[in-house]
């Protein structure tokens, strides 16, 4: 459900990040509202991962600005935040789902420990309650209760991603970044995961920025799509408008290169 809100959750204006004298992405502008899922599509090297890194404050904002509305309702220029403040956002308001689960999980800590860690990081100190919440979230991502004490190292790729999603939602974030959350998985597993993401996002009213090279992923889970090429945004709009009536030459190329299902 899309909540009504007077101002956007994320407001990006002319933002760019450069590596040395080359820009990874540049001149990016958009607003993201609570409850909206924004897909960032493009091929490798298009700057979509740089954009995600910049928005999530893993990379600097070298030009332009990114404003974020904190839980207290304050529009904050992310570039002015200190490291502890950014890390507090990571802990309490933002999730980040990595393409490779090994980057987002502790592979040799149990699934329960992985999901419970954000709670402990936020000061939870009651084992029974932490475990119960971890168990609840593992169930929501369709992982059987008897796997809670097993480590992700023993899980399939799809299960790992689901544990990662649980770990990133358990603390009630307001904004979740996802970097190619389903690539590298079997097609049937992908569909299941996308469906799960879609229903969780809708139930929780989350705002999501999802980076994907797969237009089908964008179509299935996003409200809006932003197309990137060579570090620039070449087109953005409603996802079905961008995919059904692409305006930019590059978007037409992307759309025409996918197989119709």
């Amino acid at each position, binding site marked *: 459900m899309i909540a009504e809100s007077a101002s956007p959750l994320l407001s990006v204006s002319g933002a760019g990040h450069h590596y040395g004298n080359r820009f990874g992405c540049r001149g990016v502008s958009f607003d993201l509202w609570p409850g909206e899922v924004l897909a960032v599509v493009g091929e490798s090297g298009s700057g979509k991962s740089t954009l995600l890194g910049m928005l999530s404050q893993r990379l600097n904002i070298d030009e332009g600005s990114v404003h974020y509305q904190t839980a207290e309702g304050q529009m904050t220029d992310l570039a002015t935040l200190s490291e502890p403040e950014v890390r507090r956002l990571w802990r309490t308001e933002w999730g980040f789902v990595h393409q490779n689960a090994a980057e987002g999980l502790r592979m040799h800590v149990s699934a329960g420990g992985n999901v419970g860690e954000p709670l402990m990081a936020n000061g939870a100190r009651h084992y029974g309650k932490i475990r119960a919440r971890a168990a609840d979230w593992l169930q929501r991502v369709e992982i059987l209760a008897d796997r809670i004490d097993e480590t992700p190292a023993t899980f399939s790729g799809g299960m790992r991603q689901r544990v990662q999603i649980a770990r990133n939602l358990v603390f009630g974030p307001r904004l979740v970044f996802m970097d190619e959350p389903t690539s590298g998985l079997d097609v049937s597993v992908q569909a299941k995961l996308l469906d799960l993401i879609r229903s969780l996002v809708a139930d929780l009213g989350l705002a999501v920025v999802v980076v994907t090279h797969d237009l089908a992923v964008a179509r299935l889970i996003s409200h809006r799509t932003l197309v990137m090429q060579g570090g620039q945004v070449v087109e953005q709009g409603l996802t079905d*408008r961008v995919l059904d009536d692409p305006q930019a030459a590059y978007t037409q190329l992307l759309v025409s290169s996918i197989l119709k299902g």
Partner: protein
Amino acid sequence: MTDMNREHSVLSVKDVAKTFILHLQGSLRLPVVTGVTFDVPQGQCVVLGGESGAGKSTIMKMVYGSYQADSGSMMLNHRDRSLDLAAAQPRQMLTARRESMGYVSQFLRALPRVPAVDVVAEPLTDRGIPRPQARQQAGELLDRLSIPERLWELPPATFSGGEQQRVNIARGFATSTPLMLLDEPTASLDARNRGVVIEMIRERLEAGTGMLAICHDAEVRDAVADQIVDVAAFAPHREEAK
């Protein structure tokens, strides 16, 4: 157009044009329609007529926002105001779709694993109606459209064409919006279900919903159409194609 007219129209389309530019084929220009002008009054069903390829679906998709109109205006009665769909921001389009404009398309586009009843309930939960209540209402609609209860918990991807279309209609009728867009709603239905759909459309019209429809089935068209807009009138001149 006078304010009087606008008051009674849920949708007012004026001078809308659409040309596709195919960049991959040397920027080939394909003009589809031009000067599209019509109104959808409250409680009336406007059917877009004309041969296939004339641009009926294009007009429908421009109204819904899946296609970008090149020019003109499409004023939708949204939240007691007029929203120009031709110029609306994505976020406004999303709100308009949720609150003011329902769409029953020809084909069902649903995720593989979602049960039929949840497909139908989704527009309701999107509006904040609690899931159990939404599912109950969805069940009533499915029942009315003769989808047996044993199928409700199954994903519609495995259903027959007619069943899928009925699920889609149920979804489209789950919420009540000032404007409804119907794109071949009865294409693959049997006579009995066609009758049910006609009945549902009439109920909505009586309740004041304005409808814009594409409908090749003469029986249905005759039963619901208040006005037929011939899309051939909006065909661009050959010279413009250059």
